[in-house]
C-alpha cells in the first residue's frame, strides 16, 4: 500500500489546481474537470471538483454567471475575482517553495526526478 498516492496529494493542491485552471479562462464545472484531467490530473473526481468550486465560491474567491445554451442545459461559469487571483498568487508561491524543498530533499537523497 503506497504511503502517498495521487489522490492524497490532490487533496492538498486541488484548490490551487482549480484556481490555476481558471486563471487561463473561465469555465463551467465539467469543463474545469476536463481541463484538469487533460493537464494530467487524471484521478481527480467530479465530486471533488464540484465541491472545491462550491467551497472556493463560498469563500468569496470565485464569481459565477450563467450562460444559456440553445442545445443542452444552461451552464454556470466560474471566474476568478480579485480575491481569487490574490489567493492563487499566494498559494502558488507557497507551492513552489514547498515543491522546491521537496525536490531538493529528493535530489540530496539521490532520487531521480
Amino acid at each position, binding site marked *: 500500500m503506497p504511503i502517498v498516492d495521487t489522490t492524497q496529494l490532490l487533496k492538498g493542491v*486541488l484548490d490551487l489546481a482549480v484556481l490555476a485552471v481558471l486563471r487561463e479562462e473561465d469555465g463551467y*464545472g465539467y469543463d474545469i474537470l476536463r481541463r484538469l484531467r487533460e493537464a494530467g490530473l487524471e484521478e481527480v473526481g*467530479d*465530486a*471533488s471538483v464540484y*465541491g472545491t468550486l*462550491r467551497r472556493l465560491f*463560498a469563500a468569496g474567491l470565485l464569481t459565477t454567471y450563467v450562460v444559456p445554451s440553445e442545445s*443542452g442545459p444552461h*451552464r454556470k461559469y466560474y471566474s476568478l475575482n480579485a480575491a481569487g487571483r490574490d489567493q492563487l498568487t499566494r498559494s502558488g508561491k507557497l507551492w513552489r517553495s514547498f515543491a522546491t524543498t521537496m525536490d531538493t530533499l529528493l535530489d540530496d537523497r539521490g532520487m531521480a526526478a
Partner: protein
Amino acid sequence: MTVTEQEIANYVGRVRAALADLPAEVRDELTEDLPEHLAEVAAEADGTLVERLGEPEAYAAELRAAAGAPATAAGRNLDQRVAAAVGRARRQARQLDTQLGPLLGYARASEFLRLLRPAWWVVRGYLAAMLVTVITTGGGFGLLPRFGGELVGGLVMLVALVLASIWLGHRSTRLRRWPRWATHAASVVLVVFALAGLANAEDRAGYQDYGYDPISVQNPYERVRDVFVYDSEGRLVEDARLFDQNGAPIRLGYPDCPDPRDPNGTGNPLLRTYPYCPDQAPFAPRAPAAPAPTVPPLGTPTPEPTGTPEPTGGPTATGTPGPGAAVAPNPTATPSATR
C-alpha cells in the same frame, strides 16, 4: 442525451440524503448547483449518472471531503432528522455489510448476495409460474406448475417464465425508473405469494400430524372448571378425588377460589380435592341437616322415612320406598357424616 431529468433529481436526492447530517444551510449551499452541474455532466458523455460518477453516496462523501464541510448539526427540522436517520441506517447497513461479509467468506455480504442473484431470477420465474397455476386452476396446487390443470402446459410455462425472469434480471440495471419499480413491486408480490404458499403447506403438514387427536381438537372437558360429586342421596361429597383405571389422578378444571384449609395458596394445587369451590355447587347443598345422627348412613334406607313420601310415591310406594324415592324429600335423613 440519455440521462433524464428524473434520474438527475433522483441522484441529487440521494446525495442530499447522504449529506443529511449537515446543517441545512451548508447542505443547501453545497447542493444548490448540483442539478445544473449533473445536467452538464450528462450532456457531455453517454451512460447513466451512476456509471459515470459512481453511487450518489460515494459522490456525497467525496463532495463532503472536498468542500471541507463540517459534520455538526443544530436546529434541524423533522425532514432533516428523518433524512439523517435514513443516512445513519444506510451507514449501518453498509457497516453490517462489511461485518457480515467475513462470516460468509467474502469482503462484503452484498458480494455474496450478488452472486445469488441469478438463483433468485430462476426462483422468481418458478414463483411466477406457480402464481399463474394458482390463478388458472383456482386454489389447490402442488409443487409443479400447471396451466389450466395441464402439467405439460405448466412445464412449458415454467421454462418460459424462468427464461423471461433471467432475461429481465440481466436487463434490470438498464431499466428506467418506473419499469424498475414495477419489477421490484412484482418481486415483492411473488415473495409474499411464496410465503403464503409455504405457510399453507406448513398448515397442511400440521393437520396430518395432529389432526386425529380428539383431545386437542374438541376436548369435552375443556370448559369444566370444577367437579361436584353427589352421592345417591343427592348430597354433595366434599374432598373427593378422582382416579382413572391406572390409578392416576384425574385433574379437571382449575381452582379459582382459595382452598379454605390453605388460604395462602402455598400447598400443592394438584393435591386439592373436589370441589374446589363448594360454594359454587350447581345444586343447592342440603339445608343444614336436622340432627338425626342415629339414622344409619347410606345403603340402608329406613322403611320409616319420617318424611312423608308416601303421598307422592303413588300406591306402590307405601311398601317399598326405594332409595330413589327417598332422595327428594329426605332432609331429615342427612347424616352429615362427611362434615
